């Protein structure tokens, strides 16, 4: 693993959006959360989160706010925008369709 490109195209975006669904989080927490939820299978190179986060922010799917974190330092907290929420639904549906299709083929063989 390593580069985000190795993940299925667009998956990193989906993971980030999904992770941010319940709560605003900063970068470090997002990375930890993905690692934790995936049971350490998906070891995203942590740094590659940031270009993805900035891209999503530029596109208006997520927005950022500077606030004091649990360590007492200023951190950038990302949260979903309404647009991001519907984008998440769309991408989730896409993902489900894709993985079902792949599952069908793989289990057939």
């Amino acid at each position, binding site marked *: 693993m390593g580069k985000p490109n190795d993940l299925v195209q667009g998956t990193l975006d989906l993971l980030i959006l999904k992770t941010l669904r319940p709560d605003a989080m900063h*970068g470090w927490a997002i990375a930890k959360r993905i690692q934790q939820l995936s049971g350490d299978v998906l070891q995203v*190179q942590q*740094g590659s989160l*940031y270009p993805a986060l900035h891209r999503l922010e530029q596109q208006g799917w997520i927005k950022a706010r*500077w606030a004091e974190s649990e360590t007492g*330092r200023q*951190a950038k907290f990302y949260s979903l*925008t309404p*647009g991001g929420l519907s984008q998440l639904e769309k991408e989730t549906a896409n993902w489900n369709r894709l993985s079902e299709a792949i599952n069908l083929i793989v289990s057939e063989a």
Partner: protein
Amino acid sequence: MRWIQQMRMRFQMLFHRGTAAARLDDELQDHLERQVTENLAAGMNAEDARYAALRTFGNPALLREQARATWSWTWAESLVSDVRYCIRTLLRTPGFAAIAILVMALGIGANVALFTVVRSVLLNPLPYRDSDQLVSLYEHEARLADFTNYLPVDVGSFTEWQKAAQGVAQMAMLSPWQSYNVSSEGGKLPERIDASWCSWNLFSTLGVSPALGRSFNASDDQPNAEATVILSAQFWARRYDSDPAIVGKKIWLDAKPYTVIGVLPTSFVYEGAFSGNTMQAWTPINHEAPPEVLHTFSDHELMVVARLLPGTSLASLVSQLNALQSHIKATHPGPSVHDGVSGRTMLDDVVHDYKTPLYALLAATGCVLLISCMNVASLLVARSAARKKELAIRVALGGGRMRLVRERLIESSLLSIAGGCLGLLFAAGALQWLIHSRSEMNRIEAIRFDGVVAIFAGGTILLCALFAGLVSAFSSSGKNVLASLHESSRAHSAGRTRATLRRTFLVLEVGLTVVLLVGAGLLLKSYRHLRSTDIGVPIDNVLTMHFSLPEARYKEPAQQVAFFESVIARVRALPGVQAAGLVSTAPGQGWGGDQAMSVVEHPPLAKGQNMSLMVRGAEPGYFAAIQIPLLRGRIFKSDERLDRAHVAVISQAAAQRYFPGEDPVGKHLKVAMTGEVFEVLGVVGDTRWYVSQPPNPTLYWPIYGNDYSHAAIVVRSLRNVEALSLPVQKIIGSLDADLPVSDVMTLRQSIGKATVDSQFDSLLVLAFAAIALILAAAGLYGVLAYLVTQRTSEIGIRIALGARRVQVMRKVLFDGLNPALIGLLFGLAASAAVVRLIRSMLYETEPLDVAVFATVAAILLLVAAMACVLPAWRASRLDPIQALRTE
């Protein structure tokens, strides 16, 4: 709502870029530190913890770049940084930058200036309502077709045309050759003004209404109406201080009272052939013109303006009137009644004379621009060749190819924009100079920058930038980085392809230069012919000035003659005057009128034949004063005047044409219009009425009598004749304080005025050709010098192996002269094809003038050789050891 979020981000990224960058660093730093802390907590030592954190995180510098790349305005940011970089590299070689900018400025400036002139003068519509519907109508005469297709019109024909064209076109006439003496009043000096007679509907036909007062109406335009006048805004402002109460006041013209009924708008200019833009006053023609002019078919005094009504075309109107005119000719078979009609759009009528010269000049500036572009492209190629190693290294290190191409384009754009701005200043200066120096040119007042010119300038700048930039980017597209890196370590035939490109440019540059040189050569030769033309009399130290006696004050012919006599007697008595005379029109100063005649002793002329002589009134001493030689017989005497004035002297051309093989002395000439008969007393030498026109058959009759109220005083002196102008004017003032003097100039000046077009065109084209030649020579030198530097080692080896220096020099010289020779051949061939386009601008010069072509070839070869000699000489002086050591 997402777009609001996006706009917010755009805004933030544009104005808070610095903060965003700092925060990104913080963000990444924070993440790393948390990881380090976690690793430390897991029991690693400080150093390991840091390395492990970096491993899981990735390269922070790269990630920062990747994150920044997602921001908006990144393109603008990199553009700004590229521009800054290019400015820095250009500033590092200020000489190169200055030369390139100057070259571009010359090319762009000349083009913008000429385009502005062409657009304002040739293309922009005339300043009248629906001006594309306006046409100028003329008469046409098959036998004069060599001379002109556009002859002035007579009132008789005009009246018939106007009747026939009802419902098809609205027609107005004017006679723009008139003038009035404005009497001195309220402490103002008398002056003579140019004026025009016009039919009452002229201004409504043009679609112009007066700024003050009213226009003429039909009842003003009657022989027995009260005298009325409309003033030009300029004359009103100058002489009457823009007095708003002028309307209704009376002014004195030719010693008669005229009521001012209107003042034209400031913007009004009458645009027409012969207009010269000098008309100060307008009077109704039917009131002003003598009755015989108003009903004749043979006195051609008019310009005709017609507004085509919807559904009419110029061609259909002309063909309709043409049929009418042949009918007129059939019913009035007089010798000077014309048999056809011709017409052209009013715009064409105004600018026809300038079309060929202006387009020729525009083509010349186009060539200069092309040459400048190629030169700058060539300079950029040479520059990128010199930076080849740097570029190759950048490509090898992962510099994007597009980024490099963009950099080239930015570089050329910077040069082009700077050149363009400087060029616009040039253009503005050039236009100022043009307007100042060519004020007599039709429509010169219409010249101005406008939106289209701005677009043209922008387009030119863009094209130059693209051309120069793409050429240099293309030639250094670094396809084989490895080869470049290799090549730079050991070069024999380095940069061959680049040199080929530059050689192609050189061939083109030289070719274009040759075309310009040939054009300039032909125009100069033509100008020299024009200047050295003999108008029939010596032109040095001859002063002429005109005055005109108002009919109201000098009613009787005897009064006019008495005035003429006392003026000329006093002028002759002035110290410094060698000789003086009176004439109606001096040589080289215009057509001056003609008359159809017949020889009484000859059988009547066959139908369709015509005998026409230019007519001048002269005073007996005139011939000796201006030095027209007497060839046969005698000149009329001073007492052959008034009712004894039916005597004449004819010119040699008249004698040869109308009295072939016989002696004209003693024969009699009958004037067709008046029926008066004149006895021919003698034959005198020919003179030209206009410098570039051949002598016309001319007749002189006594100015004492024959109804002359105007005259030119001709004064010849041994030296410094201009000094006499004031004393002569004082003499006239002392005889009649109300009498203004006009057109005070020497014969040489009037010839110079007639040749100013030719001088202007030839000098401008010569200037362009000179610029082109310098650029081409610089290009030649540059390419050759570059080749020699590139081949230093090769030449070193050759010399080390025993090549003689002469051989080396010859080889390099040949290398350089080769493209010049090919370009010369191309250029000569192209010139031969192109020069016939400027045939109409040439006077007594054949387009394929061998001497001009040969001179151009010689000059070009000489300059090319001079440009090549230095690099060649340097190559032959190479020290082989030094050359090989530079490797």
